[in-house]
């Protein structure tokens, strides 16, 4: 087993464990362990994880606190457990992404790595193009665009992406054939 596949397996086991353990002390210990394993990247990973879950968790936690106050019970145990767990799971994901190469972890299946690799590189290109569509509408708008203009802009982008992906698919299918790569 290669290093990346071991990392993927370890990550999945850690995720399962983090959802089977309910004692906040153990969840906190797990978080500490995950950050320790992150080494010098720990601060960055923790910061990004906090940012990633902030909006959703804040909304849930505040609503739950209000509900607890109205119904007169103590929310703390639940809130601490919930937020620790979410943070731990997010840190684990970011740690996996930073340390392991998913494509190598999945290289037992030629088909899967091919699809994921192609989809990923195409997705990065599309993400940049999408940014250009957004900025172009900004650039041409002297006032807030009307609803219908915003719809048309989104629809034009959508159609363009469909056309480009059909084109890309045809191209890569031809490339596959010319390389003699057959489906497994």
């Amino acid at each position, binding site marked *: 087993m290669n290093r990346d596949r071991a990392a993927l397996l370890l990550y999945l086991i850690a*995720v*399962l464990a*983090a*959802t089977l353990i*309910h004692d906040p002390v153990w969840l906190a210990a797990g978080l500490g362990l995950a950050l320790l394993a992150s080494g010098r990247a720990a601060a960055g990973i923790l910061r990004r994880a906090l940012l*990633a*879950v902030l909006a959703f*968790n804040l909304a*849930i936690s505040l*609503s*739950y606190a209000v509900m607890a106050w109205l119904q007169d019970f103590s929310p703390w*145990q*639940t809130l601490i*457990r*919930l937020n620790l*767990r*979410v*943070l731990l*799971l*997010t840190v684990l*994901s*970011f740690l996996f*992404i930073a340390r392991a190469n998913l494509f190598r972890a999945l290289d037992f299946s030629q088909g899967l790595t*091919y*699809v*994921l690799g*192609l*989809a*990923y590189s*195409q*997705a990065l*290109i*599309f*993400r940049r*193009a*999408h940014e250009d569509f957004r900025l172009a509408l900004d650039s041409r708008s002297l006032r*807030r665009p009307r*609803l219908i203009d*915003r*719809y*048309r802009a*989104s*629809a*034009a982008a*959508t*159609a*363009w*992406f*469909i*056309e480009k*992906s059909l084109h*890309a*698919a*045809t191209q*890569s*299918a031809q490339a*596959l*054939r010319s390389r003699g790569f*057959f*489906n497994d």
Partner: protein
Amino acid sequence: MHIPDGFISPQTYLPAYAVAAGLWAYAARRVKRDLDADTLPFLAAYTALSFVLMMVALPLPGGGTAHAAGIGLLAVSFGGWMGFLAISLVLAMQALLFGDGGITALPINALAMGFTGSFAALAAWKLFGRLNENVALFLAGWISIALPSVLVALVLGIQPLIAQSAQGAPLFFPFGLEITLPAIVLPHLLVGIAEGGLTVLGYRYFARLRAKLAT
């Protein structure tokens, strides 16, 4: 509908993975049969497409913006099984490459958005397509958002019932159905209208592009 990790209990996501895995295997066979040797490139391209459609702005009346999902459009254009696989792969890509959305929420989203969303859209398209193409497209877009939101609300809302501490406190998502159903479904009924509009316009623009390519 993007649920982070930590809100879904293993009692939910493990069986969901089992169901999803069975459907993925079946979908892969179906898609392979239809496309033959070209399955992989097309699957990759539609995955990237689905990824970017989820970034496209969905204009809401009043100036707000939601994110499109493109589920209806994908299903209507390329079939339900292809849509299901592409959306599942996007969720995997987002969770494991972009750090966006959780690995434990993945099978729930794949079943709700990918499977149910795609086939509900396809059903609406087939059912109303003979009546009026635009109405059918609109309904396909709308239901591809509305129905999955009901499923996600149900899954989240039953968490307090199926995963409790010894004292009866919720271990995962803390609100019941009486909160999740209105809080999640109502806004999505509205977002569904915007998605329906985008599905109609997007399909029409694409049809024009295709007509141009054919000449």
